[in-house]
């Protein structure tokens, strides 16, 4: 079996006296399309921060491609939450995408060379936004902004793409287009998707885990009733709000 790209081992996080994460273990493999779902406040963002090295866990370790520490994180392509993004910042699409190369430049002061420009151009073309390169990010549609953010994550040659609530603020057609892009990208890298919106878990994911302080895993892409119950403590309410039935196992449908 191939080695995991992300290994989270026995991670605990206590923030201001509250246990946010408890004994969390995750292994993401190169061909995984991993969805982590859970209620708001369940620790999803905290787990992402721990993986990204933005937050030091109280206990436990995170390994990226078998390594710990800052240098290994450059193998992660991070797509932050849309809402936290500063679209008013005076930066063009091309400058933003190029900035994703900075982690790979070792000479100081950092300067972009021809390869950096080529890679940025490729990422822009992959995302279909090459024609918008000189626009300020404010002057893009929501879908275009999201593709620009993904393009920035792609220029760093990531082995795994980490997406935080990617579809919360986009409309349904944009979300569909977005999952189409992910389906295409997952041939090249592992994908970890974090969301509180169970309704959008597409048929494409290979594994699902529920996070509510503890992580409830299942090695298939099904959300099982016991996972939901353990993570949300209120299964009836959730089913009433329309989870696409394809994510449930057979016996749930028979009920």
């Amino acid at each position: 079996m191939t080695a995991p790209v992300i290994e989270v081992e026995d991670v605990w996080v206590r923030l201001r006296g509250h246990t946010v994460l408890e004994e969390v273990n995750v292994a993401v493999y190169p061909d995984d399309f991993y969805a982590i779902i859970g209620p708001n406040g369940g620790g999803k963002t905290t787990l992402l921060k721990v993986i990204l090295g933005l937050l030091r866990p109280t206990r436990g370790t995170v390994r990226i491609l078998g390594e710990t520490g800052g240098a290994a994180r450059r193998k992660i392509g991070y797509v932050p939450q849309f809402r936290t993004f500063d679209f008013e910042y005076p930066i063009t699409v091309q400058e933003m995408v190029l900035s994703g190369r900075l982690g790979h430049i070792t000479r100081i002061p950092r300067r972009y060379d021809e390869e950096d420009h080529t890679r940025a151009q490729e990422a822009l073309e992959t995302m279909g936004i090459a024609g918008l390169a000189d626009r300020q990010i404010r002057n893009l549609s929501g879908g275009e902004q999201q593709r620009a953010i993904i393009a920035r994550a792609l220029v760093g040659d990531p082995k795994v793409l980490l997406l935080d609530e990617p579809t919360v603020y986009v409309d349904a057609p944009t979300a569909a287009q977005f999952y189409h892009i992910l389906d295409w990208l997952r041939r090249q890298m592992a994908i970890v998707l974090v969301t509180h919106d169970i309704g959008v878990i597409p048929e494409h994911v290979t594994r699902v885990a529920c996070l509510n302080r503890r992580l409830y895993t299942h090695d298939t892409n099904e959300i099982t009733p016991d996972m939901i119950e353990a993570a949300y403590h209120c299964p009836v309410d959730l089913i009433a709000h329309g989870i696409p039935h394809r994510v449930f196992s057979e016996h749930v449908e028979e009920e």
Partner: protein
Amino acid sequence: MFEVLGLEFFRNALIAGVLASIACGIIGTYVVVRRMVSVSGGISHAAFGGIGLGYFLGIDPLLGAAAFTVATALGMGALQLRARQQMDTIIGAVWAAGMAIGILFVYLTPGFAPDLFSYLFGNILLVPGGDILLMGVLVVIIVAVVALLYREFQAVTFDPDYATVMNLPVERLSLLLLVLVALTVVMLIRVVGIILVIALLTLPAAISRLYTTRIWSMMLLAVALGIAFTLTGIGLSYIANVPSGATIILVSTLAYAGALGVERLRQDD
């Protein structure tokens, strides 16, 4: 009024205005896009502690202010990176404490502090030649550092989390940026005074932001606007015989209000 251009004090005032505007346009751009306005306000008021310290030790108060503001900036930066909460309260405390330290030092210094008022409210027409030299050196340092680290500063001010994931030295870059803010504040003290520093630091950049799409173009326009505001302010204050610092700030504020008004009209179309 052209005969005054031959006078040394007036030439010094113009040079000081231009130098201050260069620093303001460049550093003010980061202050505006990174939303560091209140931190910068705290740093600038804490500078008064350094002025007082300078009087007390019998050295150039501006030199005292430089050392004091840099130390304050580093302290606040370290707190900001670690504490993460109640930063506005911490800024308020540093703001007041700096002023209080300054008042105590001035009180403890024997004799009368003659140009204390000019540090608080600025008097660009009284800038001595030595201060022009100090300002020139600071401008060179600021321009050189920003030119070298332009991409790094862009990454850190745009999306610090992503910069951390890319393994850039985010903490050190953030502290360096605060030190540059502190040095800029020191330069501005002569021009508009401690109390009005924050306006000249932020207004040209804030106006420039409305019309530019990149950091470097925002800086260039902010520098040009800063020069226009300070020179207009100096001219008006000379003609009307009113304080120069306050005049410069009012010119800048009016321009900002005008720019926002025009922007509002354009969006309504």
